[in-house]
């Protein structure tokens, strides 16, 4: 393998560039982690954090012993897990028939789906509908709002179209009905796209601030993003009133952020390989 000087140089430059880019992406996260292990005073001093300064676990101790974070954690997990499973189910159920060439009025149905991508009801009408459905102040409000997104349906539809039709025909010959074909043959083949969508939906639900904030009133229904916001805003309010509050110092905020990141961080690497495949497949054929 002879390489010209030019290509070696290019590769070196390329690597350096990508490593630098990687470091730039990683640093904000690393800074939060370092902050969360630093003492309060050091955290307030700011500046560059390559390593925790004045290593201490105080921040974690003070959050982990409070019950409100676990309530929020439980609610966020519930919304994310139940929401993702249901969303995948409904999205694939919508996408499968729409991917069939033989579906009557297919274009009409597809344009209905597309329509929702461009036009939405807006905040207030949606709120009023949710109110009439008695979903205000219920975790289901957040789940229901994210059940079927037009974009996901289209990605899924395009993926199903790439599956050979012969598969279904042969299953049909063996006596399988369409519902069985869908669950036994189509869905397992859709794993890459399901994984991709699952990740999108899960991250979206986990990070969802606005809907949780608007639709959930009770303290016992608080989700993590809302809690984080309360903690961060609490620090500012306390300083204005001259009522310093222990729970919302800079390092506690960082620790809360780190804790709230953990679940998604631990899922990501395992879904990553599907992720790339799934996105590509969806996009190229679109």
């Amino acid at each position, binding site marked *: 393998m002879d390489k010209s000087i030019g290509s070696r140089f290019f590769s070196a430059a390329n690597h350096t560039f990508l490593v630098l880019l990687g470091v730039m992406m990683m640093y904000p996260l690393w800074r939060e982690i370092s902050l969360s292990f630093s003492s*309060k*005073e050091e955290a*307030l*001093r*700011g*500046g560059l954090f390559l390593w925790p300064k004045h290593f201490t676990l105080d921040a974690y101790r003070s959050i982990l012993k*409070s019950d*409100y974070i676990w*309530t929020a954690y439980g609610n966020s997990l519930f919304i994310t897990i139940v929401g993702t499973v249901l969303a995948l189910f409904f999205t694939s159920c919508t996408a499968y028939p729409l991917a069939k060439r033989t579906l009557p009025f297919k274009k009409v149905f597809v344009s209905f789906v597309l329509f929702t991508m461009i036009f939405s009801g*807006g*905040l*207030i*009408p949606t*709120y*009023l509908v949710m*109110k009439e459905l008695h979903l*205000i102040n219920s975790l289901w409000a957040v789940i229901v709002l994210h059940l079927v997104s037009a974009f996901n349906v289209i990605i899924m539809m395009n993926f199903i179209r790439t599956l050979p039709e012969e598969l279904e025909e042969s299953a049909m010959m063996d006596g399988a009905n369409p519902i069985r074909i869908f669950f036994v043959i189509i869905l397992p083949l859709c794993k890459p796209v399901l994984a991709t969508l699952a990740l999108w939906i899960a991250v979206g639900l986990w990070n969802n601030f*606005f809907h949780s*904030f*608007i639709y959930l*009133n*009770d*303290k*016992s229904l*608080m989700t993590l993003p809302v*809690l984080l*916001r*309360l*903690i*961060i*805003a*609490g*620090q500012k*309010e*306390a*300083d*204005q*009133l*001259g*009522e*310093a*509050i*222990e*729970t*919302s*110092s*800079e390092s506690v905020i960082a620790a809360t952020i780190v804790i709230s990141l953990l679940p998604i961080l631990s899922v990501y690497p395992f879904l990553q390989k599907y992720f790339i495949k799934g996105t590509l497949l969806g996009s190229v054929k679109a």
Partner: protein
Amino acid sequence: MKTKWTLFGGVLALASLTAAAGCGSDADAPKADANGTKGEEKTITYQFMRNLSAETYPADGGEARTEILSRLEKAGIRGFDYKVTLASGDDYNTKLNLLATSGTLPDFFDIDAKTLARFVDQGLIQPLDDYLKQAPNLMKVVPKSNWDQVTFNGKIYALPNGKRPEPFNLPSVTGLVVRQDWLDNLGMKQPTTLDELHEVLKAFVTKDPDKNGKNDTVGLTGMKDSSFQPIFGAYGIIPTFWLERDGQIKKGLVLPEMKEALTLLQQWYKEGLIDHDFPIMETKQMEEKIVNSIAGMFEGSSFYTEKSGNSASLALNKLNPKSQLNMLEAPIGPGGKRGYPEGNAVAAAPLRALSAKAPNPAKLFEYLNWTADTEDTGGSMLVSFGKEGTDYTFDKATNSIDLITPYADLYKKGFSNPIRMVYITDRRSAKPEIRHSVDIVNKTLIINQLWNSLPAEVDYPDLEKKLWREYLVKIVTGVWSVDKYDEFIQKYYAQGGKEVEKQANELWKSLNKK
């Protein structure tokens, strides 16, 4: 987002129509009082909503709710219960608007002045005058002038914050905060005039006031919203205030004194006495400079002057125990003028409004009146600081409160800010240093002639926030010459300032007639 807001407006307009149509049913709200006395056995749970961040507040109201309800019983107020919803930040208004359009407003809630004006127009909230007559304690704690900002067509539509009578509870708390230990290191006295201030800042920058052998200090620091009010104050104006000139009121920023002050600021910036990074700094960066002992002086609240009042001062004190932050008296300008900006008395806490649909408001106000009662039988202390002995101690001799339970834990028990539906400024729990600083600030104040927000200011929101700030920053940093300020005044009037000034004067005259 823009379209969403327009939609919002449209639907709100619709909602107001329905609300207006529903006025007939609102009319029996006062009648309900008469029935209320009969049906007192039935407990009404009032829905409160506050714009506050208190993540530790318990879902069921905690032990505070039990305690308060039993104390209410003793005070003879029966059939009352409450439930608090907390939401915070800018999205609070989004939430409030949604609740209003869907007809599910809480009974008593936080509101800002602008939303208040709109809700009054739309008939979503009801006047408080009748109920206030039954609530002498509320009338006692809320200063008379505070009612002006919540009066529409001669009726009071919201409950502003009150304050205790001690002078350290006055609303103005902001001034120039200095590193006293640096002054001592340099053997300098607290500056009283602009010239002395100049000398001190110069020494802070050049004479190594922290004695660390490094040239790493800055004089006056600030942040992107700083407007150097104490310096302008030395020329007798505060740029964003309404000031009286020849029987009329004008914004400080159009007055000729502006250019004198700007010349000085530009000069100081050029000499390096003002932090060169101020236009790009957030509060957080400013506090980092304070904590790291880089800044010698900054515009800040009195709470900085004692370590328990502010997280930044606490950190500074831990890192550098010898450090001391003190409040300076307002510097005197060449014309002998001086002054810190007056604080908005009503801004200490959000206003509280009563939903048009609230059940039996008379009972609610009975409760509010009780929470504003500072006597032993009243609830003021209990609601604000918890139980005497376990949560706080009160020393009558020094008139000070010592908190045993810190705020975060008070919230956890369900006391203090989350349930203070009548906000009474009470700094008896603040340390003497802080009280002293508040005294210093309040010695010399420049008074704003008009605090009310004007419709024209809503129509032209960029005049002060964008246009003026651009000219201020560019002139102070020397990008533009001071003469360019004339151009600003022209632009200000051309782009809506004329209308703002007209409305301000009309309102000011009508308020002053009384």
